[in-house]
């Protein structure tokens, strides 16, 4: 139930990681409003469909613009918005199914365009809203509603994919650390180009990975998540690739292209360089007169 709208009838389950994500976005936006003196209405958050996407209805405090669209298309909608309105700060929030399964086709194009959008991916390794089917990041062998023999497909490695596609800003976060996550989101929003903050946001109902991520010394479970080492140079793509190839889940800023130029700037530059002349419709018609 959101403060804004007590009638809103959706709730996340107790302990759901998404609570931490919404908090971190609230923090990052509040900070942005303060520091940049930019009205919150300059931000538009475009959501996919999933438990995750309900975030746009569940924000507390001052509200940005929102768009809760259709499954898998948040990034494509966001492209349309950002290209039309480069002055807006455009974010998307998606689940792992939404972003990496049905919506996977949209990542490459935005990476190649380097469009200035920030994607916050809430990865719980499961389809939450539809009640527990396997997602691309569900691990091999895991039994879910749709994998009664255990999952027979390998898990996708999202960070590898982002790097191969040339995403110009790649970070990895944890919903359990909303302040750190807020910092990453802030950096992502300020990066000139396409940025992805891939967040581990566990689903307590269908795929509770808290223990695996944080570890449990009593049970002898080692933590999967570990901070990005201090000496990692995020401007070094090769170092980033090596970092994510190591076992475990690095948390922090993985890669940030140094000389990133966002699509809209590249376009302006090209128009300038080529001295594109804008013909009026009147001129076009005159050229066709018989």
């Amino acid at each position, binding site marked *: 139930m959101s403060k804004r709208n007590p009638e809103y009838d959706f709730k996340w389950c107790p302990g759901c990681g998404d609570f931490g994500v919404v908090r971190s976005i609230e923090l990052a936006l509040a900070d942005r409003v303060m520091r940049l003196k930019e009205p919150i209405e300059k931000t538009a958050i475009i959501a996919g469909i999933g438990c995750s996407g309900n975030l746009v209805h569940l924000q507390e405090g001052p509200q940005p613009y929102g768009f809760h669209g259709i499954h898998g298309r948040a990034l494509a909608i966001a492209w349309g*918005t950002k290209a039309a309105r480069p002055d807006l700060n455009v974010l998307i929030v998606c689940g792992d199914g939404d972003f990496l399964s049905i919506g996977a086709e949209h990542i490459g194009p935005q990476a190649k365009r380097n469009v200035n959008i920030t994607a916050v991916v809430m990865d719980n390794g499961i389809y939450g809203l539809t009640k527990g089917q396997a997602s691309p990041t569900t691990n091999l062998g895991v039994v879910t509603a749709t994998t009664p023999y255990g999952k027979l497909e390998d898990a996708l490695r999202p960070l590898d994919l982002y790097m191969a596609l040339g995403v110009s800003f790649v970070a990895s976060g944890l919903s359990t650390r909303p302040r750190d996550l807020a910092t990453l989101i802030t950096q992502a929003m300020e990066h000139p180009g396409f940025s992805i903050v891939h967040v581990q946001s566990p689903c307590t109902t269908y795929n509770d990975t808290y223990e695996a991520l944080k570890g449990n010394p009593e049970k002898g479970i080692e933590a999967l998540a570990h901070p990005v080492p201090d000496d990692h140079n995020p401007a070094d793509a090769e170092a980033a690739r090596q970092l994510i190839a190591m076992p475990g889940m690095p948390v922090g800023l993985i890669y940030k292209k140094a000389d990133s130029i966002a699509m809209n700037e590249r376009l302006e530059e090209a128009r300038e360089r080529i001295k594109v002349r804008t013909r009026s419709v009147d001129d076009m018609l005159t050229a066709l007169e018989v």
Partner: protein
Amino acid sequence: MGADLVVRFAGEGGQGQVTAAEGLAQAATRVGYHVQTFATYPSQIEGGPVWAQTRVSTKEILTQGDQLDVLVALNRQAYETHIGDLRDGGILIYNSRDFDTAPLGKVIGLDAEALARETGNPRAANVIMIGAVAQLALMPQQYFVDWIKERFTRGRPSDQEIIDGNVKALQVGIDAATASGYSVDPLDTPPTPEGKRILVQGNAFLSMGAIHAGLDVFYGYPISPATTILVFMEGNLNGPGKFVGQASSEIEAIAAIVGGGYSGRKSMTSTAGPGLSLMGEGIGLAWMAEIPCVIVDVQRGGPATGLPTKTEQSDLLMALNPGHGDMRIPVIAPGSVAECFPAAIHAMNWAERYQGPVILLTEMSIAERNEDVPRPDLDMPIEARVVSDGSMGNRRYAGAGITPFPVPGNPGAYVANGSEHDEQGDTTHQPLVHVEQTERRFSKLKLLEDGAYESDNSAASVVMMPWGGSKGPGRAAYNRLRADGIDIGWNYTMFISPLPAALLEELRTKDLVIVPELNYLGQFSSVLRSLGVKAQSITQYTGLPFKEGYLVEQVLEAIKARSGKLVGA
């Protein structure tokens, strides 16, 4: 002396038929004639049967012409396929290199390739053919020379040489025709044109209309026969705040224009059937979230990959209901090249006015043909959505009918929502809210029921009412029927859905509404019947436009079948 000249150039892809037809058209418009071209070819880059034709007339042209005055056959297969369309007394120009025995009748055999080589430009065979046609029709040579100069001036050092070669080739053709002693009925002197005229293709004209209507952003994925719109936009929709993007798929394109419309900008995409089939969910999103945007569908033959380079009017049912759930997408279908410009403006205006998606349904035959049309009036009203000043707070979906549109960046932050939602866009599943919001969405269509329409001989109880590109042939047939004394009426509108309210009322009073349309199902007549109109289709699904003569026959038969006797006559 005659009013009309129809010339067809037929052969294999790569022999320059389309260029020849366009050259003839351009020269003829300079003389002051009306023109219309038509071309058909397979979906490929090289080879295959291709033909292109030009109709030249002293009067407004409604069809490409049923019968040929001149056939230019560039190979034997073309000769065999098309000779049946040559009228009695028409002239055949054929490639004597390809044929061993010359056919009978008025024929001119030219080894155009050999002759072209002699002019120093082996690729000018088609220009020789144009020369021959120009001479047969007694059209002044100068206009053709002008056309050659314009076409081959490309800022390269070899330009002059190529131009000279082509001018020579033109002369070769003229001489050959002169030598033959044949001629077609020379055309009457063209009437002095009223106002300025332009020669333009449907897709280009449509694009200009959209730009004139204030289009800001365009996202599209290539597909025949819509690609030329994307290419036109890439070249011409520029300047501050404008953006054109090649999408990675139609699914990305539809989502992007919804994002563009949401941002407060006027947005558009263009596609053909296969792309439209991928856009249903996104169009539904625009309907549900109330986002203005325009989707151009340039129809080709379907379903699936279908007939990418043929014309058909078979996407109508899909256009009206492109996705699941209750919606009825407004559809505007231009009936000629001339209507493409205003149709685009109307589509953009409708989207802004009712705050939702509009489909602009055009078709291959209109998209790609050249026509001379009056230079359009740039004073047509341009509409913009009513924009929120923030005083409504976030109540974007409050009440029945349109509400001011909150533009991101300004006060009034809400959630645009494709799930059922309350006033401020938060998801809800309350039965009464779904009822209210559904009625809200449909109520806005009322704002679009005042479109213009044509009505002629409105006392008649039987009317013809074609749609889209079948308008021209339909009108030609209608004119002939009326001239023959048949008591039949005429209705036409480009506003397919919602129909102009007054027109629908009129149609409901008719005993029979005959709908010529290029599809198997009789799509528009079935829609009309569902609206309570006694409608019946004349269908054709060959991938080609109607011929006037066929429509005349079919209409007479429909009338006869209905009443046992001919109405009127």
